[in-house]
């Protein structure tokens, strides 16, 4: 069976400035979708990401094992396109960046590292 990644793009709003009612409605819509897609057996996974202010983009200069260049914020160039993703279970950002710097895309392009929202920590 072919598999597809559905990548979600949209306007960004920090949770602090979002209208709680709108937020609750969006959450309900997502729950409706995941229930439906789950019941149909088409969804094998998915995560929500923290907003781009938590992002760190890295590039390894000069090929594998080269110098790691960090920048604060999301990947912002237009000439490179999203080519794939890995989910990394790491104890903190340092560990995540250490692994991200070993992904070949880090020297062939860039890797944006962003935390996955942990809903079990939310109230």
């Amino acid at each position, binding site marked *: 069976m072919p598999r597809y990644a559905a990548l979600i793009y949209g306007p960004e709003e920090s949770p602090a400035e979002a209208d709680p009612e709108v937020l609750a409605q969006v959450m309900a819509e997502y729950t409706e979708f995941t229930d439906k897609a789950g019941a149909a057996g088409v969804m094998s996974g998915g995560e929500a990401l*923290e907003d781009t202010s938590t992002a760190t983009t890295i590039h390894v200069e000069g090929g594998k094992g080269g110098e790691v260049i*960090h920048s*604060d914020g999301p990947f912002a160039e237009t000439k490179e396109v999203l080519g794939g993703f890995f989910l990394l279970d790491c104890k903190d*950002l*340092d560990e995540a*960046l250490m692994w991200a710097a070993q992904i070949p895309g880090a020297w062939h392009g860039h890797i944006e590292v962003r*935390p996955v929202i942990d809903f079990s*920590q*939310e109230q």
Partner: protein
Amino acid sequence: MTRTVEDTLRMEGGRVLATLIRLTGDFDLAEDALQDAVVEALQRWGPDGVPSTPAAWLTTVARNKALDRLRRESVRGHKEADAIRLLSDPPPVSPIDDRLRLIFTCCHPALSPESRVALTLRTVGGLTTTELARCFFVSDATMGQRLSRAKAKIARAKIPYRVPDDHELPDRLSAVLATVYLVFTAGHHAPHGALDSRRELAEEAIRLGRLLLELLGDHPEVPGLLSLMLATHARRQARLDGNGDIVLLADQDRDLWDHHAIREASDMLQTALRRRLPGPYQIQAAIACLHGIAPSDAATDWKQIVDLYRMLENTTPLPVVAINRAVAEAKVFGPDAGLAVVNAVTGMEHWHLYWSTRAELLRQSGRNEEAAAAYRKALDCDMNQSDRRFLERRLGEIDTS
């Protein structure tokens, strides 16, 4: 008595804040709790006297204040877990100075350089948001936002609160040193207003440099940076004349230099160089010290300064290094040799020092028309008021008839 209390609070505050951040895992909570403890200290230390271990007193009181705050907020669910952790754990004694953890977290490469500078000065240096806003020519609101965004990233992206492992240290230490040096240059050479209008930042950078020396003195670039800052800051009194106009290094009254600081910088550098691990800060410190010990511009060891700039350019091939080397090469080999170096620099046309260096070397070569044109290009760039007045004066002095 009050003075002693306030001095003690300033001296101990940074260390206590660093420990509180470790204990609470929350920059804002730690800052608020320390503020509460300081208020209590100001009330109690006057009548009772300063306790024999003020840092321990402040840490204990602030820890309780943090607990009070968490209990008040515990309706917000998950905060309770933090409160319980704080309550049940006795404050662990750490073999590592918490200020070192704090410095590495504030200077983490996942934060933007401007956030690193702001956060380091706020948390390690103890500057207020208002002071920071003034230092960096932005509004209080902008600076407040910069700080809260940085703290939010630390919390939400889980930037750890730790001293990097040995294999990570070279990279991470250079981010720390670069942050402190950014603070210094922002103070030594203000980008707006008068040249020395942000002198307190240079002094704060030197304080941070001394703290780093205490914590990480084994790494020779640490004394290298402090030596560079001391030897450069030593010339501050001679840089401006009575009218607030810039006096070039060659024309400065060397009696106004702080020779005690220059001596300290030279001694510190000598010790660092014995480790035989040279780096860009030690090389720049050597240049600053050579200027510092020279009795006059003519008696300066320009030949060695040229060699040092060449060495620096090998490790740090930046246009700003090339421009400085051009000036030194001109002193030894004449203005045309300097111009050849400037000509090889590209992409710096927005920088006033690129044009003013070219202008000065053209003038020395007798090419006055071209020099005047270069001064005009320099004046098109952004710079502080002192630099602008200086360049206008130089342009006016050129004979283009």
